[in-house]
Structure formats: C-alpha cells, structure tokens
C-alpha cells in the first residue's frame, strides 16, 4: 500500500513538473522538483535506495524531456547516492545545510548538462551558466530547504503529539 502511495506521488510529481499549470516559475526558470525529491529521499533512505530511486525517476524524466537520453538517469542516480552518503555522515543537518547541498547538486547537474551541450557544440557560454544553471541551483536549493523544513516540522509535531 505504501509503495502504491509512493508510485502515485511520483507520478503526480512528474506530471506537475512538466505541467502547463505549474506555477513555480521565476523568469522562465522552473525548479527541478525531481532533483529535490531524489535528494530528500536519498537522505532518509540511504545511498543505495537513493541511487535506485534517482535512476528510476531520472529515466522517466528522460522520456519526457527533449534532452539527451540517459543524462537524467545518471545525474539523478548520482544525486540520490550522494545524498544517501551525506545523510549517513552528517549529524543533525539543518534546512540551510540541505538547501546548500541541493544547490550544489543542482549546479553539478547543470554543469554536466553544459558539458554535454558543449560536446555537441550547442552550449552558449557563459549565458547558459548565468541564466540557467546558477538561477536554477539557487531556486532548487531554496525550495528544497523549505520543503525539508516543512517535513521536519511536521515530523516533530507528529512525534510530540504521541510523546508523554
């Protein structure tokens, strides 16, 4: 039942990411909700599961995107595994640290995309870096931090409600 819930959530998330009704757009830049989800799941589930989830979601995202095939599979898998490692090694991380880490992950993914585009002769430097990669990294980090804060606050409330 829990797996079915997750599957439905992921489907909605993927649909929302590409939806024409997605309101999360600032100056044409949309946050990568899949990246944020993969990072947060990796943190809580560990590096192996994070990697698997990342690869699966990246695969679906690659299908939906006009970009090069398999790029999202590898990038999201890497981010999921990395966040699993971070979750294991860093004690009591706060939302600011997570926001920073999500920004770094997003920037790494952006630089990866730029490298592929440069290899294909389609990169426009430095415009792509300043107008797409960096703003998206900041947006992803900020949104990821807020989501993390929201989730932890809710969790604390749920725990305190049942603690005597």
């Amino acid at each position, binding site marked *: 039942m829990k797996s079915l819930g997750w599957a439905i959530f992921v489907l909605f998330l993927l649909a929302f*990411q590409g*939806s024409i009704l997605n309101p999360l757009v600032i100056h044409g*830049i*949309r946050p*990568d909700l899949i990246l944020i989800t993969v990072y947060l799941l990796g943190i809580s589930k560990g590096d192996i599961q994070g990697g698997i989830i990342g690869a699966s979601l990246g695969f679906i*995202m690659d299908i*939906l995107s*006009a970009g090069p095939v398999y790029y999202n599979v590898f990038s999201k898998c890497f981010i999921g595994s990395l966040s699993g490692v971070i979750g294991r090694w860093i004690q009591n991380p706060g939302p600011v640290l997570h926001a920073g880490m999500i920004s770094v992950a997003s920037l790494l993914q952006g630089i990866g995309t730029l490298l592929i585009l440069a290899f294909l002769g*389609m990169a426009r430097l430095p415009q792509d870096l300043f107008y*797409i990669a960096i703003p998206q990294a900041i947006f992803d980090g900020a949104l990821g931090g807020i989501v993390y804060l929201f989730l932890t606050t809710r969790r604390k409330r749920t725990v305190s409600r049942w603690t005597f």
Partner: protein
Amino acid sequence: MFRFVVINKKVLVVFLLLIGIFVLLSPEIKENPRYYLFEKPFASTVNLIHSGFSLIFRGISTTWNNYIDLVDVKEENQRLFEEGKRLRTESLSLKEKALAYDRLTQLLKVKDAIHTEFTVATIVAREPTNWYSAVVINRGEEDGIRPNMGVITAEGIVGKITKTAPHHSRVLLFSDRNSAVGGMIQRTRDEGIVTGGEGKVLRLNYILIESDIRKGDLVLTSGTDSVFPPGVVIGRISRVESPQNALFHSIELIPEVSPSKIREVMVLNIPQPPEVEMLLKEEVR
C-alpha cells in the same frame, strides 16, 4: 366651616385634584404650542421615562428583529454567495470559451492563407527541464501526425514535431537551441536560417553584409525547408550589428509567438519530397 373642612378633608383633596386636572388639561393649555409652566416638569419627567423605555424596548426589538432577520440574511447571504460563485465560474468558463473561439477563428483564417491541410492540437505539457524548449500536444500518430511536421499558430511559427506516440507528440519549439528554420526578410527578400537557443531572442544567420537590413523588418518563413509553407511570420528584427570586415550581419529577432502563452496549435501536413519521406521512415525505424 373649618370643622367642615377638617371632616371632609378627603373630599377637599379630591376636589382640589379635580380642579388641578381641569386647569392642567384645560383646552387653552392643550392647544398651546409650547409646554406650559405646569406641564413642563410632568412632561419632562414622563418623557424622560418614555424615552428610557422606548430606548430599551427599541433596543430589544431591534436586537430581536435583527436576530430574526440575520437568520434569513445568513441564509440569503449563503445563497447569494453560492450564486455569485456559480456565476463567476460560468463567466470564467464563457470567457475561456470566447477566447478559445477567437483563437480557433484565427486558426481558420490562417487555413485560407496557407492552403495546407492541418490538424488542430492543444498543448498538454511542457519540457520538464530548463535546458530545452519543447511542448507535448494531444495529437499523435493516430491523428496523422508524423515527425518533421511544422507547427504554427495564427500569429506565427511554433516549432516542429520531433517525436510521436499514438495519442500525443513532442514539438521542439523554435526557441530551442536545436531548432533551425529557413527565414526570409519580407522587405528585402534576403534568405537566411533562423536559430533559437538564446532565451526569448532568435538569431537570423547568413544574411550578407551588403543587405539593407533595418530594425523592425518582418521575418517570414522562406518555405525552403519543406516543413513550413512560405510566408508564415517568425518575428521582427530587434537588433542588427554589422561588424567591420565581416561576411554576414549579426541579426536578432523577437518572435511574434510567445511559447509560454500558446494553447492551441496547428500541425501542418505539407507533403514531403519522396527522398525526405524515405529518410524520415528510416529514422523512425
């Protein structure tokens, strides 16, 4: 006499009282427009009490009536609120229908202008990443959509089909970095290639430096790419740079169609030359 008075004291009091009443209620005093000397203290006192009673009664009455009324008003308010909500929804729906009607009318006008078969489609999704510009439309192979078909609106070009599924297709927008379309400057008839990938700005390439290009010139499709018919609007020249010793102008265009605002599009069915058809079939395989 005095004895009589003492014995009949009560009678006297009653008598004096009656005289007093007669005096106070005499027709002259009653008809006087102003309160008379005797009347004033009575009238003032009684009126004060009346006022007090009246105030309290009116307060109670108003409160009660208001309460009773409020019960109805609340229901009425709720009913009106629901009615307002329904009317707003209806109004929005009608506005949307009117806008869709306008857009479709525009598309039909284009049909007469381009003399090409087309399929009307609606955009259902957008590219999930920020690196590419593409949309997904609700028409696919079963509707006769094939890769490399041009997609336009009444305002101008949108892009071309890059991938098809039975019931939907992906359209690569003209603003994407991979996009290129044959363009022609309407005033001078100079032909070049319009490419995307620089945000909202397009670039017109390969226009010779001798050409007399001006800001504001309209750029149309040239029709040489067999994807778009000639004469469909691409955009207007917003900047021209002519570097010394360069072979070509550096030209920027502002597209007429804003990709983020389009909803309905037309997928053009232009017959492809046999060699192109063959290449496309091989690509699909």
